[in-house]
């Protein structure tokens, strides 16, 4: 009686593969993002869990090094990309990303968006934002500089570690920041400031790590950095110098791809990113401020006094048109 056995096995096998293919029909939404978003300490895992329970889909994050890696990956893959959504570009990369013509309009009601500036881009949806700021060690510095002007021009200002605009987002942010504050005179300011720069690192991690090890009392970071130390380490030691002449704003955005095979799912995910569920976890996982009014107060670690009064920013088009030239000028002023 071998045949029935074989038959059972066959039927069983067919059934298995049938359920297998049924499984395969659960759509997968692929989201390209930067690695600290999707790492186990970032918001990625929480968002994945929350979204998968409501969408009947798989949410797959692909974590790349940083925003610039994200854009270059998108450009490399072109319309062959497996991404449905791209999450984590910032304002300085928007114009170039849009120029690839790989993106689809978001069609999301942006009335609730609550940035310090009005938002009108129809492809990119902001999901959180932050400000660049100089973080200092409270045990080393009692009276921090009061403005960027003060920091860069005052001969008594403290030594700082900054990042390279050629290889890092905050580094580029500072170039734009100085340009906004000093205009055409930024080069003079940089020349004066150069003697205060302990070193210029490849990325944020090198700079912040060296700062924590005491290599300099001040470092270029984000205004929300002290909130991390307060919230996680219960420490008041690290503070941010709030500047009267403003802080440069970094807005992080999400967009869906025109080539996506799951446009509805992608669209839903965009909306989900603006929902209360996601917005409320961003401050303490991504250490950025929610782009939508959540209706509830920020966690206690985030102080009102650490929200800049004066907000600075260039349009994506301005950044895209001038970035290279401004970096070149910066090199001329600082690299001697």
């Amino acid at each position: 009686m071998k045949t029935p056995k074989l038959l059972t096995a066959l039927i069983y096998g067919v059934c298995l593969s049938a359920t297998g293919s049924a499984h395969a029909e659960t759509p997968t939404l692929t989201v390209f993002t930067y690695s600290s978003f999707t790492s186990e300490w970032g918001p990625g895992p929480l968002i994945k869990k929350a979204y998968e329970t409501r969408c009947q889909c798989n949410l797959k994050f692909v974590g790349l090094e940083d925003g610039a890696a994200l854009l270059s990956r998108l450009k490399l893959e072109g319309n062959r990309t497996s991404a449905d959504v791209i999450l984590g570009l910032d304002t300085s990369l928007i114009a170039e990303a849009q120029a690839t013509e790989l993106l689809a309009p978001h069609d999301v009601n942006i009335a609730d968006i609550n940035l310090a500036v009005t938002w009108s881009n129809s492809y990119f949806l902001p999901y959180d934002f932050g400000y660049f700021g100089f973080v200092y060690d409270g045990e080393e510095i009692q009276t921090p500089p009061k403005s960027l002007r003060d920091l860069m021009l005052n001969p008594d200002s403290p030594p700082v570690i900054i990042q390279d605009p050629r290889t890092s987002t905050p580094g580029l942010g500072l170039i734009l920041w100085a340009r906004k504050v000093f205009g055409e005179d930024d080069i003079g300011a940089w020349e004066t400031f150069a003697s205060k720069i302990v070193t210029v690192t490849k990325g944020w991690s090198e700079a912040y790590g060296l700062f924590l090890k005491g290599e300099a009392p001040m470092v270029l970071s984000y205004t929300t950095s002290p909130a991390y130390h307060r919230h996680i380490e219960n420490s008041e030691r690290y503070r941010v110098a709030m500047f009267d002449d403003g802080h440069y704003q970094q807005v992080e955005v999400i967009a869906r791809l025109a080539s996506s095979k799951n446009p509805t799912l992608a669209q839903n995910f965009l909306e989900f990113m603006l929902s209360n569920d996601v917005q409320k976890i961003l401050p303490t996982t991504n250490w950025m401020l929610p782009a939508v009014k959540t209706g509830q107060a920020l966690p206690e670690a985030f102080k009102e006094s650490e929200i800049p009064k004066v907000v600075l920013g260039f349009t994506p088009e301005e950044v895209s048109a001038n970035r290279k030239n401004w970096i070149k000028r910066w090199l001329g002023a600082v690299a001697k």
Partner: protein
Amino acid sequence: MRILSGVWSGIVVVVFLLIVIGGSITLTAMTSTPVSLSSALTDPYLISVIRFTIGQAVLSTTISVGLALIVTRALARRAKFPGRRLLILLMGLPVVMPVIVAIFGITAVFGKRGLLNELLSLLGVEQSFTVYGLTGILVAHTFFNLPLAIRLLLPAWESIPRENWRLASMLGMSSRQLFRLLEWPSISDRLPGICLVVFLLCFTSFAVVLTLGGGPAATTIEVAIYQALRYDFELNQAALLALLQLSLCTVAALGLLKWFRVFAATSGRKVDARDRPDIHSTIGKATDFFCIGICTIFLLLPITMIFYSGIRGPIYEVISDPILWLASARSLIIAILATVISMLLAMGLIKSVRFLREKTKQQKGAELALTIGSMTVAIPPMVIGTGFFLIALRTHTLAHATLIMIALVNAIMVLPYLLRSISPPYIQAGEQYYKLCRHLGLSGLQRFRLIDWPIIRKPTAFAIGLGGALSFGDMGVAALFDTDGQITLPVMLYHQLGAYQFNEASVTAVFLLLLCVSFFWAINQIIGR
């Protein structure tokens, strides 16, 4: 035809390397609009970058290899002292460290708040030591390459047979004469190759140069390539710069090739430095241990600081994270794959190189093949990676071939280490036993098993251990290929740093280093004994 049968494996490897290198550069270049070569080469900024790159590389190489000669000689003269094996094992660490870990270790010793400055202020010195600048670059490059050069040089000393030492003591040779007549002939044939590897490593150094160099004035071509590839998305410019880097390195390689000397075949098999006539004087002993001591302090202090901050971190939390183990497993798979591939490439090349030397006396041709194998360090892994990525994208294999591609890029990057440590003993074994083998009719696998293997197993174990550990510590390539969110251990380390988890990251760094050492040690136990 007979020549062809001896060199086919080498031809395959060389062609493969040329295709991979050329192909990845071409593919990368074809993806964007062309830039003009002449306008790029007359850019004063780029010219200053080139000048700086070469300058720091020459200085770093001179210092690293120069010091390595002194320390290695001391180590060779003191063939037995407590802790010698451990010291040599620990010397494998700097090379395999993720760059950011090394930076933290070096600044913990030489930085503003480092041990050195604390010592200076304790001694009442007002002026504090500043590492950022050319000093920082040289310190870091010496930290990475001095131990590497020592490890590559030591076998040369150890290959001097005891008969020679005995003869020398009968002739009453002085220490200087020993160096000139016995040691130099034995090391000088390896020196150009070692210089080349160190030079290429310093030439293509990136994050260290930027961070410890103190500012954008310290920019290497590799920085410009990264910028073009990542931030400007001018793939063409990146490819052009990669080509420029490759040509400059080729010029350097050809210069060293000219300096290359014919192998001095030594006879006799028993090797023991204790037969040296010049090791018994007190002054000799004192200077040797002084050199070894200084070198040990220089290398071990930063390593100790890394371990120290790791021990104070949240060890349990980090170790109990399942992702750490998944990432380690993935890193291990990549390391093993990369080592196997690299070993195949290296043996294919070395076999033909020896054949060329034995049968056709084509010394230069043989060295040229080895040089091509070493040049792979001169290609930025990101460019090779981008090329591979484009291939995978066009052949729709991206989702399946990720692991293989990461391994392949790593294999190509570690190939020079394998070549430089396996080829000298393998060729020497050939020269020494060629006639014997012909007499006995030994050839092929039999010859390999009976004659070559016993001689090359130790250096092979070293090379495999080093190559594996290096691929284990790799970061750039793995992050480039991510398609499914699976991470390697170094990527996890960067995740922690990016999430303000600096204490956790220091634990992970120690964990990573311990795994690298264990891998290295295990390979040496299995193969090298």
